């Protein structure tokens, strides 16, 4: 058997791109890393594997804990992690969702081509930067009352539609049509609502951004046509989440779980894995709060997208409908969702890790936690919006400012291998502190403009240094692994034209 020695951990090769940490010690299930050897080497470089092993100790975790090809060290649960917990006797973990509930990505297609913007990139990036709030204390596109925040939490993108920030087709191209039915605004604290009311329609900082891109490569003509992607066309990619409202909600529940379920927490190796037992009052409340924060994040991205349409109208002096600025799709990559999945079981009814050991299949209701991982349901799945059901759910994987981003479609193998999930980005390689030592924001910006024709504008030069292309893994390799595994299939690649960030 081929093994990979990663210091304290030895991984066994299951097959190409699939590595397993066998169950041992306090692990409830094995852990699997879906990566090439080159990516595994990077994943082994920090505490990712230790955090992955810790994640296998969460109650009710089913089959195996998963690390995606872009996995890296996070807090508690690794980034690029997927854990499916039994919804009857398992748990729901705010730590395994992350602070930025429904951090995610949406892509808008247009009928403009690269030639339409060439020579005007600076004008466009300036206009976007002036009109889309970003950075610390940048305010929001919409600043309302607590009552407005509660309506957003309850109704999601329907609120945006009522207030002329959306059109009906936007809802049809968003997961759950932009509204989580289980949302409970009363489960969100006053503090969280206070933080949210001035941040509706704002990017924030860190790795969040808005990017105008051009389509450079098409890998699947048929699916690309269904998604509205054509070579050389401009698209807009928006990456952000639920802002202070989501961050506060995560902390509120971590603390409440610590006080209420100390016994379960004491048995876990990292306090940040804090989990509420499935069926408990707190699990129900957190689920309602998380779903409400999901709605808030969808509205946040919706307002930024709609404002972008207005900016394009100013810059190009045309109606946005004439420029065919349509939402392709919106994907969440920090989320837990109650989903039904088939799992293989052996003769004793125990869940098995590989199909060849299954004597039959059972459908289980699971809380699928995806922290830095994207849902990637294949063609035919009933939860894929009808617009894309024939070809599979669009998956959007952003790369760095100097690399391509990808559009994938949910792969046929995703349900068997990864509870219907794939990667979410390039994954960080270098710490922020090291990045600031190695790069200077001004140089990074100049290099991108002169060498790659990418126009970057940011509130903070330090953010540009921290997000320099060199701090990220090779997104091409991440996507190659996803495609080879059949969990997310390559459809198209894009390259940045303009980028704004906090």
């Amino acid at each position, binding site marked *: 058997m081929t093994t990979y020695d990663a210091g304290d951990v030895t991984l066994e090769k299951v097959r190409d791109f699939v590595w397993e940490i066998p169950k041992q010690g306090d692990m409830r299930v094995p852990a699997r890393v879906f990566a090439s050897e080159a990516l595994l080497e990077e994943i082994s470089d920090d505490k990712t594997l230790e955090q992955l092993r810790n994640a296998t100790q969460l109650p009710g975790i089913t089959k195996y804990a998963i690390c995606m090809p872009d996995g890296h*060290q996070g807090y508690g649960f690794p980034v690029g992690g997927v854990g499916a917990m039994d919804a009857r006797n398992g748990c729901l973990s705010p730590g395994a969702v992350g602070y930025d509930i429904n951090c995610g990505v949406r892509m808008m297609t247009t009928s403009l081509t690269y030639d339409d913007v060439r020579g005007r990139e600076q004008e466009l990036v300036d206009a976007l930067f002036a009109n889309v709030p970003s950075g*610390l204390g940048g305010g929001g596109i919409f600043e309302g009352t607590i009552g407005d925040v509660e309506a957003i939490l309850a109704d999601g993108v329907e609120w945006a539609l009522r207030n002329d920030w959306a059109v009906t087709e936007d809802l049809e191209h968003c997961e759950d049509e932009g509204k989580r039915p289980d949302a409970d605004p009363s489960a969100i604290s006053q503090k969280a609502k206070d*933080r949210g009311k001035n941040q509706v329609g704002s990017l924030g900082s*860190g790795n969040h951004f808005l990017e105008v891109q051009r389509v450079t490569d098409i890998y699947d003509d048929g699916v690309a046509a269904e998604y509205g992607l054509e070579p050389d066309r401009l698209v807009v990619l928006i990456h952000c989440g639920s802002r202070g409202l989501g*961050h506060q909600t995560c902390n509120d529940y971590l603390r409440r779980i610590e006080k209420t379920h100390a016994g379960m927490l004491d048995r876990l190796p990292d306090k940040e894995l804090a989990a509420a037992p499935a069926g408990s009052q707190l699990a129900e409340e957190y689920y309602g709060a998380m779903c409400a924060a999901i709605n808030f994040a969808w509205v946040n991205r919706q307002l930024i997208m709609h404002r972008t349409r207005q900016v394009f109208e100013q810059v190009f002096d045309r109606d946005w409908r004439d420029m065919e600025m349509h939402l392709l799709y919106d994907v969440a990559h920090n989320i837990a969702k109650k989903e039904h999945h088939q799992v293989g079981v052996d003769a004793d009814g125990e869940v098995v890790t590989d199909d060849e050991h299954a004597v039959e299949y059972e459908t289980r209701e699971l809380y699928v936690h995806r922290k830095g991982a994207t849902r990637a349901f294949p063609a035919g799945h009933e939860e894929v919006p009808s617009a894309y059901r024939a070809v599979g759910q669009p998956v959007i994987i952003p790369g760095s400012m100097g690399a391509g981003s990808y559009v994938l479609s949910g792969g046929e193998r995703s349900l068997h291998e990864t509870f219907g999930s794939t990667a979410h980005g390039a994954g960080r*390689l270098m710490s922020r502190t090291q990045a600031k030592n190695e790069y200077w924001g001004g140089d990074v910006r100049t290099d991108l403009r002169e060498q790659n024709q990418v126009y970057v504008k940011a509130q903070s030069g330090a953010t540009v240094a921290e997000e320099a292309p060199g701090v990220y893994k090779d997104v091409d390799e991440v996507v190659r692994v996803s495609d080879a595994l059949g969990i997310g299939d390559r459809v198209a690649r894009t390259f940045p034209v303009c980028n704004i960030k906090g």
Partner: protein
Amino acid sequence: MSFELREHTADVAVEATGGRLGELFAAVADGLTAAQCDDVPAGVGDRFELSVRSESRESLLFDYLDELVYERDVRGVLPADHDATVTAAADGTWRVDASAHGVPFDAVDAREVKAVTYSEMTVEETDDGWRAYVVFDV
């Protein structure tokens, strides 16, 4: 009292020391400020006060830092130049009485820390006083 920003792949960690617990807390908070801004101007904005009570030393540090992030967002200022006093109450709870300089956002080139985390959090007594390690989500 002092702090250092430590390496963390995606986020930022602060390691701090202090002779007394209050000094330790203020040093970690200064680290939180440094994680958001390289160069904080002196003498801009007003000081504000905050008090937090919690069930343990560790949770008090968590709640104190969480409160600072909250105050940042609702006041629209970057809290800097921290001062803190930590006391133990007879009922076993802990309390921090703190103040910070609220530097208006438009006076700084700052970026956002999303939240304090419990991951790898350490608050320990050493020969010289206290040491803490805290990871912040960026």
